[in-house]
């Protein structure tokens, strides 16, 4: 695109303005390393102060509740059984009515049972985030239990919302990315004092780094590689610390990442038939059943839910809605089969009526329960 006269003039003016540059300090590199060491030290100290920060968050909640009593649509509501019971983290910089307006504008109609988890400016950024759990949809459409995240980069004027399946109530950390996919916000349950980021970018290893100390239960990190919009980050299964798992590209499908290699527990004598790992659509077909029994799918999924699996045999087709994508294995019972039956499993990804294309990353483990 050709530049206008104004643009060309601006370019020249900026060149002139930055032209008389002083020499670089000879110890710039050493200065960087010193700052890095100081920053690491400060983070260690800050992590130890995480619990204190959470207490402060609790205090700010009570203030928020008092001040919002005259606005029932944004007031705190008792948690539904499926909702997280975390306190609301609110620093008073987010206009919650405005968030709800924009959420409504983006197709989340019939919002009810709204429970706010976070409404604040993320630490060390100018980005405002809102995280809430709510039902949306109304009869005859299905009512969805959702975690709704909204982010604003313009000081709270406009908000972009995403929806995710509601996490398990035992969840310790939820992580969400902004619409560009680079900024990642981690919000932790009370009592969690630090969060690590696990990036499974390669088949042969795991990149791991710590979030900055939590402030008001939250911390942000910038990812060099963009997450897909709507990505959900969850705690690393079985991790000794509270971590997030971040799937940010398709390279994990090459080879066999550690995540893929972790087998589910097979109770009741289930016989393993096969498993697949991947993102988006796909699946596998033509598994031959060695004996009669019930097809059992154990699905470990990360990403937006629901994910639909279609299990086919010679005589039946069964749809399974995978409604939990929290990084843990969950069991779904499929059709009955007899010896020699061919079994197919088709991962349709996530195609809900809100146009969420999903791109879940999932391990689909198929076994047979005699």
């Amino acid at each position, binding site marked *: 695109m050709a530049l*206008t*006269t*104004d*643009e*060309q*003039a*601006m*370019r*020249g*003016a*900026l*060149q*002139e*303005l*930055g032209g*008389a*540059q*002083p020499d*670089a*300090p000879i110890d*710039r*590199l050493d*200065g*960087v*390393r010193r*700052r*890095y060491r100081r*920053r*690491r030290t400060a983070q260690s100290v800050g992590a130890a102060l995480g619990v204190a920060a959470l207490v402060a968050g609790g205090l700010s909640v009570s203030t928020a509740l008092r001040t919002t009593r005259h606005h029932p649509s944004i007031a705190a509501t008792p948690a539904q059984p499926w909702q997280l019971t975390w306190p609301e983290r609110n620093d008073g910089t987010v206009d919650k009515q405005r968030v709800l307006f924009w959420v409504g504008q983006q197709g989340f109609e019939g919002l009810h049972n709204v429970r706010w988890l976070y409404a604040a400016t993320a630490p*060390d*950024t*100018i*980005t405002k985030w809102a995280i809430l759990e709510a039902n949306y949809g109304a009869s005859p459409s299905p009512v969805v239990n959702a975690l709704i995240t909204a982010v604003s*980069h*313009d000081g709270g004027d406009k908000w972009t919302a995403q929806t995710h399946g509601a996490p398990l109530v035992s969840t310790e950390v939820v992580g969400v990315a*902004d*619409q*560009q996919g*680079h*900024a990642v916000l981690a919000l932790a349950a009370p009592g969690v004092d630090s969060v690590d980021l696990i*990036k499974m*970018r390669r088949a042969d290893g795991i*990149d791991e*780094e710590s979030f900055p100390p939590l402030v008001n239960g939250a911390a942000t990190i*910038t990812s*060099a*590689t963009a997450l897909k919009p709507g990505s959900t980050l969850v705690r690393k299964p079985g991790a000794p610390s509270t971590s997030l798992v971040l799937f940010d590209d398709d390279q994990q499908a090459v080879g066999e990442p550690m995540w893929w290699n972790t087998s589910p527990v097979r109770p009741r004598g289930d016989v393993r038939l096969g498993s697949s790992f991947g993102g988006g659509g796909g699946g596998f077909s033509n598994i031959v059943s060695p004996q009669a029994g019930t097809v059992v799918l154990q699905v470990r999924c990360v990403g937006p839910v629901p994910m639909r699996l279609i299990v086919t045999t010679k005589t039946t087709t069964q749809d399974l809605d995978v409604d939990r994508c929290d990084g843990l294995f969950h069991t779904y019972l499929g059709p009955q089969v007899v010896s020699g039956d061919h079994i197919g499993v088709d991962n349709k990804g996530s195609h809900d009526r809100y146009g969420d294309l999903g791109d879940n990353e999932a391990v689909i483990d198929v076994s047979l329960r005699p």
Partner: protein
Amino acid sequence: MDGNERASFAEFVAARGQALQRTAYLLTSDWALAEDLLQTSLARAYPRWDGIAGDDPEAYVRKILVNTWSSWWRRRWRGEVPTERLPEHAAADAFATSDRRSALSAALDRLPKRQRAIVVLRYHEDMSEAQVAHALGVSVGTVKSQASRALAKLRDDAALVGYGAVTAGGE
């Protein structure tokens, strides 16, 4: 970070440090602050160098730089910002270049932070609108509209009257 990565990082700082410091200066209007900003940004990139060195490290560091500067804007005292034009000097010609720089610097100071970042990245760094949008986490449309508004403000800025084509009306 192993020896190769340390060498790669040092090479990057040596090769691109000056250019990044210039960008930092256009954001801060102060060379000391610019060096502070650059070092802070590099210190944030340093522990992640393994993951970013193979992609586009300069774009990554520039993004950190702009984000860090944005957060500084919120929490730092910004010092004195003149609100009135200084009286003209009798020997203006001798200081014409310096005056122009001061005027432009002051005009940039008066821009909202995002408009300023867009102006610097778009017209100094020669980044495309899409690249600027990516770096700032905004839409391309926002970059276009904000750049247009920034140029319009600079065009109308009283301190820049007579400053080349920026004030010529945009045609």
